[in-house]
């Protein structure tokens, strides 16, 4: 179990491009669909919580999932697993990568991954909407947040807390 947690989160670390939001489909696939460590509903709540607590979203998710699956050891192992590939890659490659990065093939590959990051974030939105927000009330809250994000400089955490308060009032 512990080893499986480590391997799973290391795998997530290797394929996580584009930051916390883009990691959501990867986590959902591994944690909910493949291993059944969390239910889809728990996963969605954990995602909401990880937007409200400080720090990197993916670290929050790894710690939460690891703890829920195997206690403190699980939390440590999942979080270390998540950052291990990066730590190794940076230790080994950082020296060469600034040069390597300028090479056209590397640029082309990175240019290909960028649009996929948007598709991943979109897929995360679809997953959460389908599992947790696909009601008239949920749609109204989602649209409100979308409009406030687009039209003002509201901080994401403030928007999530506002959504929660609206939730207490209307649900």
């Amino acid at each position, binding site marked *: 179990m512990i080893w499986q947690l480590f391997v799973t989160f290391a795998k997530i670390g290797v394929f996580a491009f584009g930051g916390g939001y883009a990691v959501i489909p990867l986590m959902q696939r591994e944690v909910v669909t493949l291993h059944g460590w969390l239910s889809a509903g728990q996963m969605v709540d954990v995602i909401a919580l990880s937007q409200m607590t400080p720090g990197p979203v993916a670290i929050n998710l790894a710690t939460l999932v690891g703890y829920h699956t195997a206690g403190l050891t699980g939390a440590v192992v999942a979080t270390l697993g998540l950052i291990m590939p*990066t730590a190794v890659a*940076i230790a080994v490659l950082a020296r060469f990568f600034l040069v390597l990065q300028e090479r*056209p093939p590397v640029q082309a590959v990175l240019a290909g991954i960028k649009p996929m990051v*948007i598709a*991943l974030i979109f897929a995360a939105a679809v997953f959460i909407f389908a599992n947790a927000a696909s009601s008239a009330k949920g749609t109204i809250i989602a649209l409100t947040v979308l409009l406030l994000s687009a039209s003002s400089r509201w901080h994401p955490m403030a*928007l999530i807390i506002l959504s929660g308060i609206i939730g207490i009032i209307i649900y």
Partner: protein
Amino acid sequence: MRNYSGQANTVVITWRLFTGFFRIGAFTVGGGYAMLPLIQHYIVEKKHWVDKNEFLDLIALAQSFPGVIAINTAAVIGYRINGLSGALAAMLGAGLPSFMIILLLVNYFFRFRNNIYVSHFLAGARAGVVGLLVYAACSLGTRILRNMRAWFIFGIGVLLLVFLHVHPATAVITSAILGYLLFAGREGS
């Protein structure tokens, strides 16, 4: 690459990297991108460890590695300033606060998740997250989806992820291959 270990005690710099990233990790909500301005303030304006242009290069480098943006950024900057020990100190500093805060909250979270107020709060928060995600996809989209090839890869991605439910890792590999085939030798797009 210059190394700053000659200018001051390496142990002191390692410690400052740790505490600097720890403070940023403890007080920024919203993930890696929200941390970038604070990291820039600390590293560039306050400590003058690197100048702004080099900082932007390092950020670009950090984002082209897979993994957690905030941790990658910490690792690359820490490495640049103080080698491997700097990288480890900065990574640990950036990750530790959220790890500890989650450990403090996790028991209450799973216990009170079904409390009526908490569950209604979460119901609202989940819907809010959908709004945030759609906004993030749109604002990234206006910057990245600027030619047919990018739109094509995005379309393939939506098809694979939303309709065919392939593993996201497979989708990332597919996009890397498509990027190599479509963008190689056609710079400036």
